[in-house]
């Protein structure tokens, strides 16, 4: 082949691939899944695909939805907003009824604009950025919970289970930790608790002795730290070494065994962590059944709560299609907004959604670190 033809050939290949893959099969119900299968979040995305595929297979074995088979179309957005916008167009062009995704908020945002314009039902399993639900998109929903839900739970937990009256709140100035701290403060004050200390640490520091003595002199009944586990561990360690009598409660970014390694077991025992439950600890028959089926099929446990959330998103779509006997996204969205109450979910009963598309209720639970250095579900939980 002459070298002069190389560019011509390239263009020819391009044109052929442009026109490939433009066929339509009306019989199946197409559901899109937009997750990061490559890139930094590939671990989560691949697990989410497995989780949803399991449910799709189960549904199809039982005869599908409304007598039609479900076809899952998976697209990889690599967690990147540019790719998210491109694959969102692909899913729209493929004629999906509903889309589950994306994993991270940065990818969800540009995609949600495209799904909204195309009028497709869009459920994110894991994007918690508040502003996603503030654009008035009528067909956008979350099955995960916003950070303010965790704040509400933490305040309730400290009041009802720990019987605290005066609490201290500590964050690390990151967007997430500061948000959680502020939500907790607001809810705690609404419940009549006194926030006697509210400040931030610098996550680059390693010596927290000054701030710890300040906290101790405010004499709180409980201290809520909303930052990440490396600093959480150091706080526990130094608080223990100083002999301070503080009851620590940590946010879900501290739900990590490294917390105990850094703190040392003797300093970490009795610390509470507010977090989404691990899939194995979900005490609902639907959850147990699903987790068992997942292990049987793939030979590995449901390692991340986000995998389960992705399956939950499919579960919601399935439920809505069955109940409304329709595949019109407008009808499905209307149903989820107004009529969906007490859906038997994999992550516990779904109480419904508010007008913005945020899930009502909470599934957060409190874990406690026991003498063996394990996170165990605290026997006492606040009222739902």
């Amino acid at each position: 082949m002459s070298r002069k033809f190389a560019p011509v050939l390239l263009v020819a290949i391009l044109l052929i691939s442009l026109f490939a893959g433009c066929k339509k099969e009306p019989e199946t119900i197409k559901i899109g899944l937009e997750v990061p299968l490559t890139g930094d979040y590939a671990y989560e995305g691949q697990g989410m695909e497995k989780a949803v595929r399991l449910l799709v297979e189960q549904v199809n074995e039982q005869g599908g939805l409304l007598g039609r088979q479900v076809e899952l179309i998976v697209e990889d957005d690599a967690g990147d907003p540019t790719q998210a916008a491109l694959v969102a167009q692909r899913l729209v062009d493929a004629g999906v009824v509903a889309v589950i995704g994306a994993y991270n908020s940065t990818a969800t945002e540009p995609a949600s604009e495209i799904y909204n314009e195309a009028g497709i039902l869009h459920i994110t399993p894991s994007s918690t950025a508040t502003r996603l639900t503030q654009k008035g998109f009528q067909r956008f929903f979350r099955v995960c919970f916003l950070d303010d839900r965790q704040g509400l739970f933490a305040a309730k937990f400290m009041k009802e289970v720990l019987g605290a009256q005066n609490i201290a709140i500590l964050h690390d100035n990151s967007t997430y930790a500061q948000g959680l701290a502020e939500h907790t403060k607001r809810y705690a004050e609404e419940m009549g608790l006194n926030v006697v200390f509210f400040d931030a640490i610098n996550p680059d520091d390693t010596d927290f002795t000054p701030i710890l003595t300040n906290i101790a002199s405010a004499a709180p009944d409980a201290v809520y730290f909303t930052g990440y586990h490396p600093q959480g561990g150091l706080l526990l360690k130094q608080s223990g070494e100083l002999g301070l009598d503080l009851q620590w409660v940590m946010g879900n970014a501290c739900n990590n065994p490294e917390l105990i390694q850094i703190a040392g077991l003797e300093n970490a025992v009795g610390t509470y962590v507010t977090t989404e439950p691990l899939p194995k600890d979900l005490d609902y028959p639907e959850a147990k059944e699903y987790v068992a089926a997942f292990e049987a099929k793939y030979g590995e446990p449901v390692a991340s709560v986000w995998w389960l959330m992705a399956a939950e998103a499919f579960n919601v779509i399935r439920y809505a299609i069955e109940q409304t006997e329709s595949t019109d996204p407008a009808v499905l969205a209307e149903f989820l907004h107004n009529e969906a109450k007490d859906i038997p979910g994999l992550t516990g009963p779904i109480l419904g959604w508010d007008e913005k598309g945020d899930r009502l209720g909470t599934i957060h639970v409190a874990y406690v670190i026991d003498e063996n250095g394990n996170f165990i579900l605290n026997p006492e939980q606040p009222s739902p």
Partner: protein
Amino acid sequence: MTALRERLQKVNPLWWQLGLLVLAILFPLPLGDYHRSVLWRTGLYIILGLSLNIIVGYAGLFQLGHAAFYALGAYTTALLNIHFGVPILLTLPVAILVGAVFGYLITRPILHLRGDYLCIVTIAFGEVVRLALVNNIFGITGGANGLSGIERPVLFGLVLRQPIYHYYLVLFFLVFTIFAVRRLENSRLGRAWMYIREDEVAAEAMGIDTVRVKLLAFIIGSGWAALAGSLYAAKITVVSPDQAKFLESVIMFCIVVLGGTGSIPGVFVGTLGMVTLPELSRALKDWRDAWLGLAMVTMMIARPEGLWPSRRIRMEIRAAKEEASVAPAAGN
């Protein structure tokens, strides 16, 4: 073939240029929104490739941190729009200015570096920008999540929402870019760049102010990349530090080198190979990345001057090769 070519050469180039433009306008019309978005992305990367081509292709300076300027443009547009409500299209000149100023500030102290040393500094600068964005510098860049909530551009009351409008917006700037780059290429400045690329000492001896001319290459190239960043922000409505990733810079660099250093059609071919083809072969998943690596290695061995090189570079590389194959014989 030669007869055809001769006949084609007699045709006024304006005709086939006009033909290509009409084709570019009509081409997306029968396509779906996905393919229109792919075309949009292709156009955007051609602009980026052409901007980098000024630095790498014409002036012969290594720049492996070009994505930083792309990100700077996008963040400028995002910040101006989100905090001050400036309409998107009005942020374009500011973005260009910001890109150009940063291009000046960064390259002024390092211009005396040559080749690989310059290359390392530009890589470092790209990483500095990315890390600054990730670490939420001055509390305005939104950290790893980036900034969201950028408005849609409005042109004469028409809100540019659909991919097709964004394609035309990019096409407009692309045509303008090609026009400008062609003028530059044949200008006094363009010739000075190429002179420096060939032999800096000789260029200086001939009275070319090499520092000023090299600076201009960086300033123009960086400002232009920032313009592409603004166009990106206008369509995606989200900016994130991912834009300043090293891989982005590498892709831009490869577009220039794969297509043919210093050649405008080469940038088109390079973009098709580095951006468009991998996007369209999504079904191949992980193999897409393998293809990029394979293509690069094959290219460097079989066709170092690029797929569609500029005439000058081709002659140069061919001559160097012949010299190399002749030299050992002479040495014996």
